[in-house]
C-alpha cells in the first residue's frame, strides 16, 4: 500500500503489467524518454527499456494502427493519445478496425489494446484540451469504454483493461490527476493525500470492468456519474443535504445496468451528470436505460446535468463546467417533483 495520486496509480498499473507480461508495451507521443506530458509513463522507459516504452511520431491514427497490427501478432499494446481531443484522426482505426476485428475475422484475430487518453476540462485547456468524447466510443459495438474517478480504481481498472482481450478506450479525467475536485475552483485545490481511495496496493490487483460502484448510499435520489463528476456529485450532495445515492459508473460500456436499476427502483428519482455536451451524449443512453428498467418506479423526470452544447470556452470554463450548483438544482427538482 502506498499513497498515490492518480498519475502515480496509473503509472503503477503499467509498471506492474510491464513487469508481469513481456507482451505488454507502451507507445505514444512523448511517452518514452520524457514520460508523457502528464508524466503518467514517467520512469517506465528507463526501467523497461526503449523497446518496451517508446515515443511515436505525431500520428494518432498511425498509433492505433500499429496497436492493431501488434495485437494481431500477439502483443498487448497500451497506447496514449495525448489528449482525448486528438483522438479523431484515429477514429477509423478504432471503429472500423480495432472494434470490428474479432467479429469480422470470426474471432481469428482481435485487438487486445488499451487506448489511454486524458479527458475533461478544468485546466483552462480551451476547446481542444478539454473534451469528453466518451459517447462516440460507447456507441461503437466492439469497444469498451472506461473512466476512473480515483487512484485505486484507476490502477485496478487500467490493469483490467490491459488484461482484457477487447479494445478498451480508457479515459482519464485530467482534472483528477492530482487531486479530487468537487467543482469549486475558488476553494483551495485538494491533493489525493489522505483520501481513502488514494491508498493503492503496490502489487497487481483488478477492479473489474462493467461494474459500477456505489460511492454514497442514499434513499432520496440516485445520481449517476463518472470521472470528475463523481466528486462534483458528492460535493453537491454534501452541500444540499439531500440523501442521494451516488453511483460511479466506472465502465460506460458495457454498463452495469443492474446496479443502476436497483438504485433507481429504490429511490424513484434520478439525476445523470456528465461533463460532455448534453445533446446525444451518453446521458441519453443512461436516461433510456433507467426509464426502460424503472419506469413504474420513477417519481420524477430524470434530469441530465451536462456540459452545454457548445465547445469548451477558454475564458468561461467555470460557467461551462457542470458544477455542484447545477447538480444541486437538479437534485432539488427531482426530489420536489
Amino acid at each position: 500500500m502506498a499513497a498515490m495520486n492518480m498519475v502515480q496509480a496509473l503509472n503503477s498499473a503499467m509498471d506492474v503489467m510491464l513487469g508481469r507480461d513481456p507482451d505488454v508495451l507502451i507507445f505514444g507521443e512523448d511517452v518514452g524518454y520524457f514520460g508523457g506530458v502528464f508524466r503518467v509513463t514517467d520512469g517506465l522507459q528507463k526501467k523497461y527499456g526503449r523497446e518496451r516504452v517508446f515515443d511515436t511520431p505525431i500520428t494518432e491514427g498511425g498509433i492505433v494502427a500499429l496497436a492493431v497490427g501488434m495485437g494481431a501478432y500477439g502483443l498487448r499494446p497500451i497506447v496514449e493519445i495525448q489528449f482525448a481531443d486528438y483522438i479523431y484522426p484515429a477514429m477509423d482505426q478504432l471503429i472500423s478496425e480495432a472494434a470490428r476485428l474479432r467479429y469480422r475475422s470470426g474471432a481469428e484475430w482481435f485487438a487486445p489494446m488499451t487506448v489511454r487518453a486524458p479527458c475533461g476540462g478544468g485546466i483552462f485547456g480551451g476547446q481542444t484540451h478539454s473534451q469528453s468524447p466518451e459517447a462516440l466510443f460507447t456507441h461503437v459495438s466492439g469497444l469498451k469504454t472506461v473512466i476512473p474517478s480515483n487512484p485505486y480504481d484507476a490502477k485496478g481498472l487500467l490493469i483490467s483493461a490491459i488484461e482484457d482481450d477487447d479494445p478498451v478506450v480508457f479515459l482519464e479525467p485530467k482534472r483528477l490527476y492530482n487531486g479530487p475536485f468537487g467543482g469549486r475552483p475558488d476553494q483551495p485545490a485538494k491533493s489525493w493525500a489522505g483520501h481513502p481511495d488514494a491508498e493503492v496496493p503496490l502489487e497487481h490487483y483488478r477492479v473489474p470492468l462493467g461494474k459500477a460502484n456505489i460511492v454514497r448510499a442514499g434513499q432520496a435520489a440516485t445520481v449517476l456519474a463518472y470521472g470528475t463528476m463523481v466528486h462534483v456529485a458528492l460535493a453537491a450532495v454534501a452541500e444540499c443535504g439531500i440523501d442521494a445515492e451516488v453511483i460511479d459508473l466506472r465502465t460506460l460500456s458495457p454498463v452495469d445496468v443492474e446496479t443502476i436499476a436497483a438504485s433507481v427502483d429504490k429511490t424513484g428519482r434520478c439525476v445523470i451528470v456528465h461533463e460532455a455536451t448534453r445533446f446525444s451524449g451518453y446521458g441519453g443512453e443512461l436516461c433510456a436505460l433507467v426509464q426502460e428498467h424503472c419506469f413504474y418506479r420513477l417519481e420524477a423526470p430524470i434530469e441530465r446535468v451536462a456540459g452545454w452544447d457548445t465547445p469548451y470556452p477558454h475564458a468561461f470554463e467555470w460557467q461551462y463546467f457542470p458544477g455542484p450548483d447545477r447538480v444541486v438544482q437538479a437534485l432539488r427538482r427531482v426530489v420536489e417533483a
Partner: protein
Amino acid sequence: MDRDQVLQLHIPEPKHRPGELADFSHLRLPLAGEIRRPPIAASAYEIRDLAYELIRVLDDEDRAVGPWAQPLEPAFLLRGLRAMMLTRAYDERMFRAQRQGKTSFYMKCTGEEAVAVAQACAFECGDMFFPTYRQQGLLIARDWPILDMMCQVYSNSADRLKGRQMPVFYSSREAGFFSISGNLGTQFSQAVGWAMASAYRHDRHIASAWIGDGATAEPDFHYALTLAAVYHAPVVLNVVNNQWAISCYQGMAGGDESTFASRGIGYGVPALRVDGNDFLAVYAATRWAAERARSNLGPTLIEHFTYRAAAHSTSDDPGRYRPQDESAKWPLGDPIERLKRHLVAIGAWSDAQHAALVAELDETVRETGRRAEALGTLNAGPLPDPASMFEDVYKEMQPHLKRQRREAGLEPGGTPRPAEGA
C-alpha cells in the same frame, strides 16, 4: 510572371474516355534487363532512380534477362503458373456464381494475378500478409483450399467467418492472411505494427501489405511509410497500380505527377517499380525487398505496374468510363500468358500441357464449386446459425447482447425465429 495572369483550376482527366480509342503510347517502358539490381543495403537515396523505372525480366522473346533474372527451377515456375491459372479459373467461376444469384457480390483480379502469386512465392511460411480484396492469389499460392474461399463467398454453413463478411473479404490466420477490411488502406499501417511486433520479439518473420493506386491517398499510406521508416520495420509495402480505382484513373491519385514508387523516397524508404505482369520481375523485386527486411535493413516500397482487366466488381461497368479497347491495348500483356510463353521457350512447358492444365483446373474449380454449393449459398442456404451473429462482438458475450439475442428469438438451441419476411 505575368501579373495579369489569373489562376486556373486543373482537374486531371484520363487521356481517353468511352467512345475514343485507347492509347498507351505515352508510357515509357524500359526494356527487360535494362535496370540495375542494387545491393540490398542500398539507401533510398542511392537507388531513387529505380522508383521511376520499371524492372522487367521477361523480354520480347520470352527469355529471362538482366540482373533481376534469377536462376529458378522450372518446377517452381510451374507452381506459380498453376496458382495464377487457378486464381483466374476461380475468379471466373465465382463471378458467374454471383451472376447466378448465389451470392451478393464478387471481385476479380484478372490481369493482376502475378502480383499476388509471385509475391506469395517470394515470401516464407510464417511471413504475414495484409492484403486488399484483390490478392486472392496470395491464398491460392499458399495452397489455401479454394473450397474454404468459396464458402466465405457464399456466406454458407461452412464459412469460417460465420456469414458476417461480404464476399471476398477472406481471413485466414493459418495461411498468414490478415482479415480483409472494407475500409480502404487500413491494413497498410497495421502491417507495420505486425512487423514491429515481430522485431520486438526478435522473431524472423516479416510482414507485407498491399494497397491500390487509388487508396494511396488514404492516411494509412502515409502512416505506414512514416512508421516503417522511423522504426526500420521489416515490412514490404506494395502499391498495386492497376491504373484504375473504380471509375478514376491513376492520375486522380497523383499518378500523373510522379510514380507511386517515388512516394517512398521522401520517407527514406527504398522503392522499386516493377512490371506487375511479369511474374519473374515481381518475384525478383519481392525477394530483394524481403531479404532487406529480414536483414534488419528495414522497409521497401514496391509499385506493381499492372492493369485491372476486369470490372472493379460485379457492381461495376467499366464501359461507362474507359475506352472499350483499353484492356486489349494494355502494353504489358497478360501475366499468365507471359509466364507460359517463357516456360515454353525454355522447354519446360507446351501448349498441349497448358491446355490440359486449363481443363484440369476448370474441372477442379467446378468440382469444388459443387461441394461448396452443397454446403450452402447465400440465396438458398444453409447458412451459419443466425444466433452466432451476437458472438464475437466481444470475447465474452456482454449482457446486453444476450438480452438482444433473446429479443431476436435467437436463443442458441432454441427454434430460430425466421428472418423478417423470409
